[in-house]
């Protein structure tokens, strides 16, 4: 047997196990709660526990599978290829393409600067570069899976759709404003080395290995947030107490959306950390648009990333960037509150 096939064998064998587990989570949970622990049905504690025991493995299973698949897909998209695809693209087409590529190209906020320099230097327009930099952190796989797991596919699609629109239009507007003179002076003057790195030939088994390491990396980092988040959700299950946060974020107050953006921008969290908070807010009756606006401003616009970008951008451009994206998020929040 060649090693490519061997590498494929384990995931293929695990898939039916995954499916059986996923399909039978509810009966397994009920069996544990009702038959093994013999807990009284209908009490707050029992139902909270049922929610917790069902929800944690459900989200974990989804996360593992999707991150594995995304990890493999990402081996086909390197930043170098993305840059090549974006070179010389016209403004609008470039923005759309950059936003889509932002979702699938591997990205870590610590690489924001080299990516920015690499893009701009090779002639990718400023606005197109921004579309990429907005979409990449905002629409990430962990956020998407958790939204699906906790709120269903409609909320998930809404998030992806509006996130893409914001990235496309914010980048487009920044491009139209012609703000190149607000990029730090040295950026356009310096010439950077050409990458002498050879494009690595990846075998299928290498791609599978990337899938494994993505799962190990990401699930290893976010599992604790999921347990905490679902734990909070479980504790509140069935409870809807009045609360300060909810009353100011209430739908009847128009300022709830701007306020949640204002609170969200300086807050920094990874997608996994913010979802528990969002689920608490929604559970407590905060309208969806306000909650999504809060989530987008927290993970899409973060102070640490802005401070990193200060090295290559002048303040007016940073302010424009924050302003345009925050306005986009505001509009999304208002529209959803109005629609739903």
């Amino acid at each position, binding site marked *: 047997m060649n090693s490519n096939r061997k590498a494929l064998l384990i995931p293929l064998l695990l898939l039916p196990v995954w499916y059986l587990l996923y399909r039978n989570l509810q009966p397994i949970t009920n069996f544990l709660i009702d038959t093994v622990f013999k807990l009284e049905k209908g009490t707050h504690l029992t139902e909270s526990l049922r929610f917790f025991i069902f929800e944690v493995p459900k989200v974990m299973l989804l996360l593992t599978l999707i991150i594995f698949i995304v990890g493999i897909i990402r081996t086909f998209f390197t930043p170098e290829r993305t840059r090549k695809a974006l070179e010389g693209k016209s403004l609008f087409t470039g923005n759309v393409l950059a936003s889509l590529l932002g979702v699938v190209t591997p990205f870590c906020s610590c690489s924001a600067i080299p990516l920015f*320099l690499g893009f701009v230097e090779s002639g990718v327009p400023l606005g197109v570069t921004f579309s990429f930099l907005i979409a990449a952190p905002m629409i990430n796989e962990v956020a998407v899976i958790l939204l699906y797991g906790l709120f269903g596919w409609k909320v998930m699609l809404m998030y992806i759709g509006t996130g893409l629109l914001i990235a496309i239009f914010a980048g487009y507007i920044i491009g139209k404003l012609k703000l190149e003179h607000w990029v730090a002076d040295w950026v356009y003057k310096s010439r950077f080395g050409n990458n002498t*790195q050879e494009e690595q030939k990846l075998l299928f088994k290498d791609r599978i290995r990337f899938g494994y390491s993505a799962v190990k990396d990401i699930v290893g980092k976010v599992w604790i947030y999921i347990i905490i988040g679902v734990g909070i959700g479980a504790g509140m299950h069935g409870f809807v107490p009045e609360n300060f946060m909810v009353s100011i974020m209430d739908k009847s107050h128009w300022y709830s959306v701007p306020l949640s953006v204002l609170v969200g921008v300086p807050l920094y969290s990874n997608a996994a950390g913010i979802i528990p908070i969002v689920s608490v807010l929604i559970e407590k009756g905060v309208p969806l648009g306000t909650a999504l606006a809060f989530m987008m401003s927290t993970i899409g616009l973060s102070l640490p990333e802005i401070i990193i970008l200060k090295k290559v951008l002048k303040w007016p451009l940073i302010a424009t960037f924050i302003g345009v994206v925050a306005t986009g998020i505001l509009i999304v929040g208002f529209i959803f509150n109005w629609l739903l």
Partner: protein
Amino acid sequence: MEKIIKVLGTGCAKCKTLEASVREVVSSNNYPVEVIKIDDIMEIMQFGIMTTPGLVLGDQVAFSGRVPSKDELKKYIEQYINA
């Protein structure tokens, strides 16, 4: 001429992991190379990489944007030493 390995990274978690791994592989195998960490973004950009961390063997970028296993690092470094 002495062989030099450069670890390119601005200080993110992955960059630190890579530097530590490289140093460990080099010292535990007694490879005759010098390991240098490069933090300066301008200097990093001279190598034309767009994701950190990166590893440079001599003046050749070996890889960027990931932290390979120690076994893989060993292979890279041995290949470089024996070249």
